[in-house]
């Protein structure tokens, strides 16, 4: 039993929830001061674990009444520091709101609480012929509330779209504690698409407490292809050729030689370790359409210099091909203990040029890079590997990261394809956006949160500064990209 707190904020929170679900001890405050990113900010003030919408609202009201900020948090798998606290805010942890409330198979939708783990929803739907399409690589851990906050992606978003395309409605506790439902179960928005504006708001617009997601039909036919190339350029040209030929694969992923060499001993997927790059192409749909696309991709691959095209013969082979892709990062831990994962998007037609430039940047900084990424939509994920015990290495890592961002934007790209801005990239926002562009974004934010209490100091470059890289974490078990 905790002692009655002297802090009036804590007393209000305890009254609103119950003592076990309000934590102020040092262990909890340290634990909830970090997410999966390399960033450090301030420290969590009070940590709350609400279980109902009314409790979330009470937490928000109490925080604001005591002049404190609040930060919502799911599983903390974010890689941009979006859930890192600044200035001792009230942390509102939503992992205990983890119920799947309703599944309507005929209307292909489900209402879930924000703490439901992404993969748990698709597992729950097993046998219905339906699934939740967004599949970030962290899907075994990340929550759907976090997916909404980050507008998360994943390999299969190439065909099916990112999270926003799969969120029909969302119940939100606004930063003044009011509860509203944005969007609707069916059809276009009534009035402004405030649902669309909210998704991807990185916790700065309010807190999602119930989410209505669209469920996607399982495709009757799936084919997984493995293509291998003697140069990254040839692989990249094949990616462009597939898209230009009018095909949208369900997923189109690239792994470079460094990744393949690291992964193959672990998964025995049969990746050719002497290839400069491999592509995983997944096609889904109806049998004739899939068969036709396999034929066309074989042709394109051979004219673009693929050494071989392997079509997975059965489910086991398909799983092994994907296992290598999805578990790439566990294998990397044996090479170097520390990592920094970036996330930018470039025009597909610039893939070869930018990836080559990334190799140069990394060499200039004397680091190791591995590239495993969503090539089909130009979404790069260069992973820098290093040993943080080396003196001065952090500066080189950050310099390389910054140069990768600059090169991506200069190539006509954007700062982030799925990790978001958080603390990590807000200083780069002015590379992509003019002051007037940023002003328009701040108008959106101000309408939701006029007093700037919801996860402040994130996303937009103006305002209070917070966040710095002090040290980098060790590669945790089952790390994702």
């Amino acid at each position: 039993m905790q002692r009655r707190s002297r802090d009036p904020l804590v007393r209000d929170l305890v009254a609103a929830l119950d003592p076990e679900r309000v934590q102020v001890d040092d262990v909890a405050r340290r634990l909830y001061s970090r997410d999966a990113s390399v960033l450090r900010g301030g420290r969590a003030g009070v940590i709350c674990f609400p279980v109902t919408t009314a409790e979330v609202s009470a937490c928000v009201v109490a925080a604001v009444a005591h002049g404190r900020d609040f930060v919502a948090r799911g599983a903390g798998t974010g890689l941009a520091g979006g859930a890192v606290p600044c200035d001792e805010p009230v942390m509102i942890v939503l992992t205990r709101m983890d119920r799947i409330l309703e599944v309507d198979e005929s209307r292909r939708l489900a209402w879930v609480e924000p703490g439901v783990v992404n993969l748990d929803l698709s597992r729950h739907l097993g046998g219905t012929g339906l699934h939740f399409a967004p599949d970030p690589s962290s899907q075994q851990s990340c929550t759907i509330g976090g997916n909404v906050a980050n507008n998360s992606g994943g390999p299969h978003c190439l065909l099916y779209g990112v999270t926003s395309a799969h969120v029909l409605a969302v119940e939100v506790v606004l930063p003044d504690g009011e509860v509203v439902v944005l969007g609707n179960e069916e059809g276009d928005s009534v009035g402004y698409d405030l649902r669309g504006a909210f998704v991807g708001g990185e916790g700065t617009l309010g807190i999602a407490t119930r989410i209505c997601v669209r469920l996607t039909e399982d495709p009757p036919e799936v084919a997984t292809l493995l293509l291998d190339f003697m140069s990254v350029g040839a692989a990249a040209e094949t990616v462009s050729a597939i898209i230009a030929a009018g095909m949208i694969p369900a997923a189109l992923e690239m792994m470079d030689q460094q990744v393949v060499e690291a992964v193959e001993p672990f998964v025995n997927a049969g990746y050719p370790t002497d290839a400069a790059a491999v592509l995983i192409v997944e096609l889904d749909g109806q049998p004739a359409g899939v068969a036709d696309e396999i034929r066309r991709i074989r042709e394109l691959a051979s004219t673009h210099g693929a050494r071989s095209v392997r079509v997975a013969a059965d489910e086991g082979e398909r799983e092994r091909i994907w296992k290598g892709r999805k578990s790439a990062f566990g294998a990397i831990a044996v090479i170097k203990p520390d990592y920094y994962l970036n996330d930018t998007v470039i025009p597909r037609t610039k893939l070869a040029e930018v990836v080559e430039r990334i190799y140069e940047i990394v060499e200039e900084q004397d680091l190791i890079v591995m590239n495993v990424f969503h090539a089909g939509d130009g979404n790069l994920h260069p992973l820098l590997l290093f040993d943080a015990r080396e003196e001065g290495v952090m500066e080189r890592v950050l310099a390389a990261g910054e140069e990768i961002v600059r090169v991506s934007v200069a190539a006509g790209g954007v700062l982030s394809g799925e990790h978001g801005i958080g603390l990590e990239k807000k200083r780069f926002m002015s590379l992509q956006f003019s002051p007037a562009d940023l002003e328009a974004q701040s108008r959106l934010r101000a309408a939701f949160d006029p007093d700037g209490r919801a996860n402040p100091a994130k996303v937009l470059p103006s305002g209070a500064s917070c966040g710095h890289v002090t040290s980098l974490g060790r590669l945790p078990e089952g790390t994702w990209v």
Partner: protein
Amino acid sequence: MGMTVGDGRMEAFRSEVGDSGAVCVRGGATRWGVGGGSAGAREVSAPVGIMALEPAEMTVMVGAGTTLTELAGELAVHGLEVGMDGPQGSTVGGALAVGRSALRRRRVGQIADVLLQADCVGADGVAFTAGGPTVKNVTGYDLCRLLVGSLGTLALVGRVILRTRPVPVCSVWLAGEVEPDLVLEATYRPASVLWDGARTSVLLEGHGADVDQMVETLGRLGLAAAEPPVLAPGRGRWSGLLPDDGVLEVGAGVVHQPDDSGPPIVSEGVLNLAARMRASFDPSGRLNPGRDPYSRAA
């Protein structure tokens, strides 16, 4: 933020909008009355023309004043389309402002997912860009989705980058007196399913052999090839009860009917948030002052 073809026309558009006085953009005016009228506001027009078509990027940059027909014609040359539709004469900007998803939405997706980047003029007369040019982008706030369906009350859109998609190889309408649920069970991702209370019409798209297979299956249920249905001009929101002369777009929440029904009821909290949004973007209320996105039927 580099210069692109059409920058001169964007600057002319910005200058025409200016920084004072009530103003609205006139496109094809095919749905001019949706959400109210122009209320005597000065009319301007957005740039016209296709500025950059990149098949390998699946994107097209186009002036918002371009008609959907012109855009479709140009894209068809490359076997591409955008997931938007509208009455004959509709413009890209008009269709985005109205924000109604295409009849084929079950296949092509929601209109909100089509807009990647919008070059706009704000109420203060300053040009700004929302979104970004790539097909995937979560950089900053999603102004593009907010703009779609906003009837030009937050900013005026001059030029856009849209996501393109391949035109289906094969496409066929079928109809018959069958429950829509049975049709959905027997097909994979039909592009559209319509129900008039007795008859179900379905649009199948895809590879020829796959479509043939579904046609055969649906034939056994009693559906046969049919002309594309002609839909009444009015709209209502699906309430679970189909009006006598209405046709339901199954799964889309829309009823096509002779006249518009009244606007759906929206909670006070949402209306307050919407009012804050409008005031935040347009404090003096000069952009499309006669229009209210919440006064429309669907």
